[in-house]
């Protein structure tokens, strides 16, 4: 016969078997918890400010004299989700090249950060934007108008990249 003796249930004392003291302990715990500070963040009003290491939506750096991007197309080639499309054009500036068209399909983007890693000019970086919404598929394709962000707002990320990249 396969009889188990001296199990945990058998070793319990009378009060432990009665469970009532344990139940009272549990009730005391939940009652105390009621008055503790809450973890919830009231989202639309109270927003979370990510650190520089956060990989939000990729954006193009906009310097005082125009965009940094030279339209080399590396980001487009490295992108595992094929989300980036770049068309280069020539300009009279020192850099000679600029992207005539730069589009990121945000439905495809997987926020891996490879575009940022591969960029020789530090022109495409991950921003802190995390609540990205759109109402249609067309809206989800971000062009230069949405991608270009002034450099002042990206300082933290650029600092992070300089330190750890």
């Amino acid at each position, binding site marked *: 016969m396969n009889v188990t003796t001296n199990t945990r249930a058998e070793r319990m004392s009378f009060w432990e078997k009665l469970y009532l003291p344990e*139940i009272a302990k*549990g*009730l005391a*715990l*939940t*009652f105390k*918890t*009621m*008055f*503790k*500070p*809450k*973890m*919830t963040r*009231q989202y639309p009003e109270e927003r979370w400010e990510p650190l520089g290491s956060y990989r939000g939506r990729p954006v193009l750096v906009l310097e005082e004299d125009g965009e940094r991007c030279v339209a080399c197309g590396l980001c487009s080639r490295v992108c595992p989700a094929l989300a980036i499309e770049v068309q280069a054009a020539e300009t009279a500036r020192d850099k000679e090249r600029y992207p005539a068209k730069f589009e990121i399909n945000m439905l495809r983007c997987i926020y891996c950060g490879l575009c940022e890693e591969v960029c020789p000019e530090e022109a495409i970086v991950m921003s802190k934007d995390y609540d990205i919404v759109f109402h249609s598929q067309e809206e989800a394709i971000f062009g230069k108008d949405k991608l270009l962000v002034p450099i002042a707002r990206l300082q933290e990320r650029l600092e992070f990249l300089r330190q750890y990249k």
Partner: protein
Amino acid sequence: MSSLAFTLVKGAIALNFALVIAAALVYLERRISAWMQYRIGPNRVGPFGLLQPLADVLKLYTKEDIVPYNANKTFHRLAPIISIAVALAMLCVIAPASYVLLEDGTKLFIAVAPNVNVGFLLILALSSIGVYGITLAGWSSNNKYSLLGGLRSSAQMISYELAMGLAAVAAVMLSGSLDMNHIIASQAGGRWNIWFQPIGFIVFLVASFAETNRAPFDLPEAEPELVGGYHTEFSGMKFGLFYLAEYANMFTASAVMTTLYLGGYDMPFLPQLLGLQEGTVARVLFELAVFFGKVSVLLFFFIWVRWTLPRFRYDQLMNLGWRVLLPLGLANIIVTGAIVFFVR
């Protein structure tokens, strides 16, 4: 005003009051459970989220009412009605306050059906009918999970009704009457039954948790095993009725416990201190406040326990019901009977 019309008015007030309480309880349950889990809970609809239950009911009303293919249409429709009707019908004998003495010397009782000599028996009988609502819901849905939920519920309710009845018998023996007003009158002046019947009170409390299908006895709707239990196949306001019935049942169970063990609307010393004469409107208002104060303490306890204890396993449930609570209830009756017989 004729007494029939007056009774109807009282009934209408009691019904609406109970439904409002049930809706408020849904809100409180969500809020308190949130606090116990370091959350905030519903706070967007109206001030402090107080209009949340209203929004929920509106949503339920506008939802599509889906009846499963091959379901028994009659019983599928009847089940939620039985559930809510039984939960609300029990309110008729509950006395939240005593009476107002009119100028011509007649007593205007506050209870919907005052001085019913089988009052408490009626409550036990009606709570037994409540099983039908849940069992029929499970059976008529033509869904194995619903059926399992319904079966569990009927087994659970029958098991715990025994313990509940036995616990109540001891309290009724002390009071010497089944009439709710008499039971309260016999506990006047702080001689509440809970002081003389602590074991009976605990047995009754545990059994009423099982009767109302609340955690830790919520096996009929055990979400992880049974999808949603007996109300899986109900949608829209049919589901809403089950939901309301659960909370109305909680309210009724609390009111019954208050009447039977906590002295009902009795509060020692305070009315004499405030100089409130029996039969005046002020006294009745005071008694209502006392009664609902006690009821809300119990209601909070119901919610509190639900968010503290995990669900029982089926065999543990049956063990507790048949091998612990039933013998305890029987022993309690014998001891109480002996004391009542030899001492009084």
